[in-house]
């Protein structure tokens, strides 16, 4: 409880100026105010470069479209909500840069209704009893407004059904399904974005995670400047042989892989720490968001990245006629999700209905397309499988993926058809158990094997070798953060530290002596020759300091 009071105090101090500003501006009046807290640049913001803008431009021509034709998705949600539920709503949309920033805000007592953290942070929030489950009515697929349950990919639904979170409630721990607490938003893998002009695909496949320590790429590869992602990579590097030796066809393959990628116990951290130090010696640097630009400008050849950032980097580089590629190590990689969770107190604030409606609106195929197109990440929404007017199977999201990445020979611009492959995404659109080959995109070979399509819609075999990394509990987190600080910072030899400390103390002592020494009898400087002879001749024990008080007497 004490922690809370101090937190509130700290928050109040930091937020005072913000509150003053907010009070001054205000927003439009509304029946419901929904406070959403999500990643920066993680939603359709309309205008140029948005899905609506680009599709309209394709239809009518570039000049006929203005930015106002493509409003931000939040405006459309507010309209939709008013029409559907006959209540006016205002969305206060705030953004964060890291999961930890968001967590700090929540702990400080900021009352948001809906958050969009990553998988591990959802687990942490659940374990600390900071989030509440969705209503049962949210999962009722008969309700036409329940877009999430009707449109979410069967593959993702299974992942959320099978994953468990440990929820602490009233001091008791209980295992719950992820799906009770979180609705998916975006998902993806991690891997290497590389520049094929300098890096051979075959070489990369042979090296796998060892790429990080290969002397071929010294100073040409970056790692992430955050402990979780780089620790994950170091796990892959340390246990690569063990990972490759796993039986891929076995039932327990993914579980065994997940266990290895969650080795955070003390017996493993020393080895991983050594690996991290080796990596540090070889890499160009740790980056948070400069990696994309550094790839495009050619500073580096390899960038360890999230798939959504990879798609973005590939798209950007294409504009400069640079064709980057994406690679996921054979030994396995990271599978991650960002999902919507309802904060505790959302019922008391009366915003639970609106929050769930928000998730549903974002799960409409149209919204999923808009968001996904705008940010480059992959939506968890697969759309409903229906039939079109000709009675043929139709899925809006598949249609979208095909529009983005499908290949059709255009005799006007190309001499001969490009090499294509059939890219099977049945697992995502129909579920892992569905018979393969039902939802297939015919795409260019490059795109399907190593470029945008591969990065944005990972094929089933890549997913099979990807693992979710659990959250670190308080003790583990402390241990691994210590390890991380030892990796990031330089450590001097103990003798050097001792010498320097002694030197520092000596300097401080010397200066203080010079400054205050004349107030201490022992260190009083001897008067200069020729001056104050009287005092010099006086016997030392009779000497009385002449200060103001004395002279007053």
């Amino acid at each position: 409880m004490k922690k809370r009071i101090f937190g509130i105090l700290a928050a109040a101090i930091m937020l005072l100026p913000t509150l003053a500003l907010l009070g001054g501006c205000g927003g439009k009046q509304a029946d419901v105010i929904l406070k959403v807290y999500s990643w920066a640049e993680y939603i359709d913001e309309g205008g140029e470069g948005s899905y609506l803008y680009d599709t309209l431009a394709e239809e009518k021509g570039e000049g006929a479209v203005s930015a106002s034709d493509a409003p931000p998705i939040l405006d459309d949600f507010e309209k939709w909500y008013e029409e559907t539920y006959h209540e006016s709503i205002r969305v206060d949309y705030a953004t964060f840069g890291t999961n930890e920033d968001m967590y700090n805000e929540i702990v400080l007592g900021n009352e948001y209704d809906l958050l969009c953290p990553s998988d591990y942070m959802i687990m942490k929030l659940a374990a600390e009893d900071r989030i509440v489950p969705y209503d049962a009515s949210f999962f009722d697929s008969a309700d036409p407004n329940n877009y999430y349950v009707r449109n979410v990919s069967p593959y993702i639904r299974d992942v959320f059904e099978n994953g468990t979170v440990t929820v602490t409630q009233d001091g008791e721990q209980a295992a719950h399904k992820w799906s009770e607490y979180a609705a998916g938003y975006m998902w993806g893998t991690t891997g290497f974005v590389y520049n094929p002009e300098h890096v051979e695909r075959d070489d990369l496949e042979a090296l796998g995670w060892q790429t990080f320590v290969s002397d071929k790429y010294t100073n040409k590869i970056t790692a992430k400047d955050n402990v979780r992602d780089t620790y994950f990579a170091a796990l892959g590097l340390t246990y690569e042989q063990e990972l490759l030796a796993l039986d891929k066809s076995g039932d327990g393959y993914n579980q065994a892989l997940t266990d290895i990628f969650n080795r955070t116990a003390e017996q493993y951290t020393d080895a991983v720490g050594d690996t991290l130090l080796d990596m540090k010696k070889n890499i160009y640097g740790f980056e948070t968001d400069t990696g994309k630009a550094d790839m495009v400008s050619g500073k580096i050849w390899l960038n360890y990245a999230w798939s959504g950032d990879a798609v973005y980097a590939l798209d950007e580089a294409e504009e400069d006629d640079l064709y980057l590629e994406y690679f996921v190590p054979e030994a396995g990689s990271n599978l991650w999700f960002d999902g919507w969770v309802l904060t505790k107190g959302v019922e008391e604030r009366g915003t639970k209905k609106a929050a769930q409606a928000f998730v549903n609106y974002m799960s409409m195929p149209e919204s999923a397309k808009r968001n996904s197109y705008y940010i480059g990440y992959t939506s968890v929404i697969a759309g409903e499988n229906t039939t079109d007017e000709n009675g043929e199977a139709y899925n809006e999201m598949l249609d979208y993926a095909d529009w983005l990445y499908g290949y059709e020979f255009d005799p006007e611009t190309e001499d001969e058809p490009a090499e294509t492959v059939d890219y099977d995404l049945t697992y995502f659109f129909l579920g892992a158990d569905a018979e393969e080959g039902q939802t297939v995109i015919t795409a260019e070979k490059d795109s399907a094997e190593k470029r945008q399509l591969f990065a944005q819609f990972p094929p089933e075999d890549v997913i099979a070798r990807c693992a979710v990394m659990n959250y670190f509990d308080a003790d583990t987190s402390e241990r691994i953060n210590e390890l991380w600080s030892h990796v990031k910072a330089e450590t001097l030899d103990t003798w050097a530290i001792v010498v320097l400390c002694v030197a520092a103390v000596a300097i401080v002592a010397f200066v203080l002596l010079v400054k205050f020494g004349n107030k201490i009898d022992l260190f009083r400087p001897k008067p200069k020759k020729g001056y104050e002879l009287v005092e010099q001749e006086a016997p030392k024990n009779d000497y009385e300091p002449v200060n103001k008080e004395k002279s007053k007497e």
Partner: protein
Amino acid sequence: MKLRFSRKTLCIPYAVFLLFFVIVPMAVILVYAFTDRNMHFSFGNFIKFFSDPTKLSTIVYSIVIALITTVVCLLIAYPVAYILARSKMKKKHVILMLFVVPMWINFVLRVNAIRELFNWIGLLGQANYFNTVFGMVYDFLPFMILPLYTTLMKIDPSLYEASYDLGGNGFTAFTRVTLPLSVPGIVSGVTMVFLPSMTNYVVSDMLGNSMVTIIGKFIYEYFGSDWHMGSMVALVLLVVVFVSTLLTGGFKSEENVRGANL
């Protein structure tokens, strides 16, 4: 009741400001530094900090980086400020302004520009510590030039004439008149450069590719996971800063005495 504004009432806003933005935050940091996760009083973080060679090394590295930055800034800034202050050029304020103009351009933009420049030269990723110090010097140079220039401008020219009259040459005039009298400027310049360059991790992240860790970065990272340790690091930094201010202040009064005795 008649509303009266005494000096005391005018002080209230400042007192409130100091209370809420200086004293209370410091108290919060102090409390966090000496508590554990459950908010129980504990010396755990203190012991952990001083028994961890990495954290102590980071302090050392930060101080060394800040010291080099300060010395280089001083070596560059003093001649510039001296020449500008003594010259009879009509447009010297234009030159002074040129040194200061970069301060008006967004800091991140400037660091990014240097990053590109270093990449072009080929230094980026090769000499992370050099790059960091260079970036800091570039960034904080105006903070050294300005106080030096103002102090040097204020020195009465008749003092130089007096020193020549008393048989001094250019060198002695500088060492016996200019230098002692410009000490207040040096002190404020050093304070303005040394302290921020211990914590400005944007420079070390961008130009050192996050391979250089200074104490400010440490604080930032700990506040992502462990506020208590983060507060302890912040507190240690506070002490280092306090001591270094004390040191420069100590030199200041000593030099002032000598200056006054001239």
